[in-house]
């Protein structure tokens, strides 16, 4: 929404031909940002979008003077509110970071100092930059707390960060950024670490601040839904360079550059279910052959027909805590899961969806045997599962974790990591055969067979997750538990992995328990879905039924709040 009166004012941020380089150890230089231009007017939200490594965060750091050594601005110019930055020092005459430029960081759990009160952290900047007295600063802090909508602001000022929820903490961070009346706010992934319902509130808050206070916002994000929701303009970056820039509507509805097109197409839509997500590179013949080989060995597909129940969970309850140190005193018990029941059928992808803390991961961990249940039963292929399990049961249940960076042992070569469970379950007669299996598995997940000789640090996040999947497939499981397998990954990589998991299900006859907080991903992947809230399943239905005719209020709320490209665009078109 370009505003005539605003457009006439001095831009709050004017970046011209900015180039940031990092000298590397071997004498080369890495160009993190390649000659980009960026203009933000007062009251405008400009989204900077791109996948990890695109250089979008570097832009934000460069203009705040926070570039990590040895990175430096090589050429170009940055002007904040018409005042140019001195490129040698990274500082601007007349512009003070914190006073004129506010920052909002990604993770509200870590961006506040745990040892100081909210008041102390909120007032620091005002005491330093505005030279206010303590009483004045406190009065202003109270106003800010009210402005960002924190309940009981007086009491919350005396709180420590750990006493606030994630959403409240992010509000405090935003209040801190606003404290000295900045003209520009750099928000680096401000809602990525938050649940959808909180995300919607925070986005609205940022939009209101831009509209009411005329603050310009540089919004660094990888989430197209967020862009569609609040951004006026968008710049898409790839490998440090600007690929496309323009009004958010124009870029999202009709992207011109090929990369922009693939990036936007890779965003899983929440409205329709696609057979496959469009990705640039398709599977090769080698991959398909390897999958056929994996399938011929798989044990899950041969026995029984589809629609058999593989996993049956009844009234599952999990409690944490308990057992007080002083005998006779009852310790506080946290009920993470309160009586959950569902079935997973053979060849089905069953989705568990819910906000953080709803107990979905606890359910997965309990089924995998990592957490002990306090009540209820888990029945897997006719065997009741308790804390102690037969080797054959453990073999048939494999898990893929959320963070591929910590899921692989950095000291183990990939081949050994994949061959280890194969040998442990005696699925290969000797080490050479296991290694052969590992190679086939690597090919089946779309990696070259010679990748096995390297260590995990040689791979990107997406490749590591492929390796983790290959490792899970090694013992020939019949049920694969995927706990947020793509939430740490970029959209294009996510699209590839989701396709891969679907193909593996179809080809190897796997059943899957798929856990995610992302409704769009769930819709693309799952056959049936259970929606969890506070440890209970509030709704369980076929995917299409759940998305087209949700019954429970909570499901409807989740669906309404999920930022979605298509819905927002069509809504804007209708206006």
């Amino acid at each position, binding site marked *: 929404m370009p505003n005539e009166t605003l457009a006439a004012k001095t831009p709050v941020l004017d970046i011209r031909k900015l180039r940031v380089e990092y000298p590397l150890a071997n004498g080369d230089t890495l160009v993190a940002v390649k000659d980009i231009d960026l203009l933000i007017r007062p009251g405008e939200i400009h989204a900077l979008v791109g996948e990890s490594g695109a250089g979008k965060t570097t832009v934000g750091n460069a203009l*705040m003077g926070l570039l990590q050594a040895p990175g430096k601005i090589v050429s170009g110019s940055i002007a904040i509110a018409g005042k140019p930055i001195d490129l040698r020092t990274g500082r601007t005459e007349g512009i003070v970071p914190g006073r004129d430029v506010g*920052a909002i960081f990604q993770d509200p759990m870590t*961006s*506040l*100092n745990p*040892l100081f009160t909210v008041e102390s952290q909120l007032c620091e*900047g005002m005491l330093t930059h505005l030279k206010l007295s303590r009483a004045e600063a406190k009065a202003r802090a109270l106003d800010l707390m009210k402005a960002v909508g924190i309940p009981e602001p007086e009491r919350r000022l005396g709180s*420590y960060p750990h006493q606030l929820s994630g959403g409240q903490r992010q509000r405090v961070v935003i209040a801190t950024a606003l404290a000295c009346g900045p003209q520009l706010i750099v928000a680096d992934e401000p809602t990525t670490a938050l649940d959808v319902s909180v995300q919607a509130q925070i986005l609205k808050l940022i939009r209101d601040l831009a509209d009411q206070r005329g603050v310009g916002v540089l919004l660094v994000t990888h989430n197209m839904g967020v862009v569609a929701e609040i951004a006026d303009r968008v710049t898409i970056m790839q490998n440090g360079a600007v690929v496309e820039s323009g009004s958010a509507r124009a870029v999202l509805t009709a992207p011109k550059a090929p990369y922009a097109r693939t990036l936007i197409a890779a965003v899983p839509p929440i409205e329709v279910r696609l057979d496959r997500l469009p990705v640039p590179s398709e599977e090769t013949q080698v991959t398909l052959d390897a999958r056929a080989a994996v399938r011929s060995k798989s044990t899950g597909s041969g026995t029984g027909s589809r629609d058999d129940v593989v996993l049956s969970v009844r009234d599952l309850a999990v409690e944490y805590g308990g057992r007080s*140190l*002083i005998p006779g005193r009852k310790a506080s018990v946290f009920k993470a899961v309160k009586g959950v029941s569902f079935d997973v059928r053979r060849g089905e992808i069953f989705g568990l969806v819910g906000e953080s803390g709803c107990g979905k991961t606890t359910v997965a961990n309990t089924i995998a045997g990592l957490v002990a249940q306090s009540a209820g039963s888990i029945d897997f292929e006719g065997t009741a599962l308790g804390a102690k399990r037969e080797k054959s049961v453990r073999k048939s249940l494999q898990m893929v974790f959320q963070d591929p960076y910590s899921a692989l042992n950095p000291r183990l070569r990939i081949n050994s990591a994949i061959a280890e469970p194969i040998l442990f379950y005696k699925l290969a007669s000797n080490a050479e055969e296991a290694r052969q299996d590992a190679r086939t598995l690597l090919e089946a997940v779309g990696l070259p067979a010679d990748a096995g000789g390297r260590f995990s640090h040689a791979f990107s996040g997406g490749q590591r997750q492929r390796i983790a999947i290959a490792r899970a497939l090694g013992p020939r499981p019949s049920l694969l538990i995927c706990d947020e397998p793509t939430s740490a990954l970029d959209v294009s990589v996510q699209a590839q992995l989701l396709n891969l998991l679907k193909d593996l299900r179809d080809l190897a006859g796997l059943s899957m328990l798929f856990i995610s907080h992302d409704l769009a991903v769930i819709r693309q992947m799952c056959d049936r879905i259970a929606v969890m809230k506070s440890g209970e399943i509030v709704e369980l239905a076929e995917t299409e039924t759940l998305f087209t005719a949700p019954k429970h209020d909570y499901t409807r709320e989740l669906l309404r709040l999920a930022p979605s490209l298509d819905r927002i665009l069509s809504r804007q078109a209708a206006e």
Partner: protein
Amino acid sequence: MLRLLSVRLFQAILVMVAVTAIAFVMFRFVGDPVAAMVREGATQAEKEALRMALGLDKPILTQFVDFVGQVLTGDLGTSFRYQQPVVSLLMSRLPATLELVIVATVLALAVGIPLGVLCALKPNSVFSRLTQATTLVGISMPTFVTGLLLILVFAVNLRWLPSSGRGDLVDLGFWQTGFLSLSGLKSLILPSITLALFQLTLIMRLVRSEMIDVLSSDYIRFAFARGLPRAHIYGRLALRNALMPVVTVTGLQIGQLIAFAIVTETVFQWPGMGLLFTNAVGYPDVPVLAAYLLFVGFLFVMINMAVDILYTFIDPRLRTR
């Protein structure tokens, strides 16, 4: 907060009961106390009489309860060697050790923390490399070598400082202090440096590594993004987080120093508890050893409690639990 305290107190009592039991066993069964106490050539009847008088004929449990009662009333028995109540012996030696340990700890903290911070801020500078190397030498050298070297240089060659003893003491009635006389203060310098060196290195390295961790955290980056002054970020926001483990380590170290400053006290002929203990081991003076065991146990329990309480003041996250 109250809950935490009560749990800690409960644990402390448990530990003390266990330590008391061990001290009792030692007292009762390491050697025959009667044989150690009677004059030579005593008759069997005399020995029996003494045994009765000491209550050693009663059941073990009753004896233990009696022992606990005695400990609680401050009666730790009589030293075989000095023929004095053990409590008064300990109390006469305690001020010497405590004063030495306090000075050493203050020294270690006052030098170790700033050094650690400086090394963390410029990890690759010549200064921090030099500091790291020097302190490594300091930590690898046995205490007696450091002590003897210091004596050689400052007492023997330069004749600036005394080589042994506590110097002139001022008697405060309950406490004999060396803080109030020049020679007392001079006498403290060499032994406290010797004692502090290990602790200093430990604290410096701990602060350095913690500080490096904290400086890379989001909340410090956020503090920079808010344009706060560097001195404030390093000296207050970051340091407070980095000092958390230092509190634990310093607490344990103080206990360690009080209980086992033996080598330093021997080298400098410091009339502290370490010297009392070494002499008791040689004799063997069982009541002193048992009392010493009780005292050290009590000390560690108290220090750990103090550290836990201190923690709740530093870290608000522990208060609400």
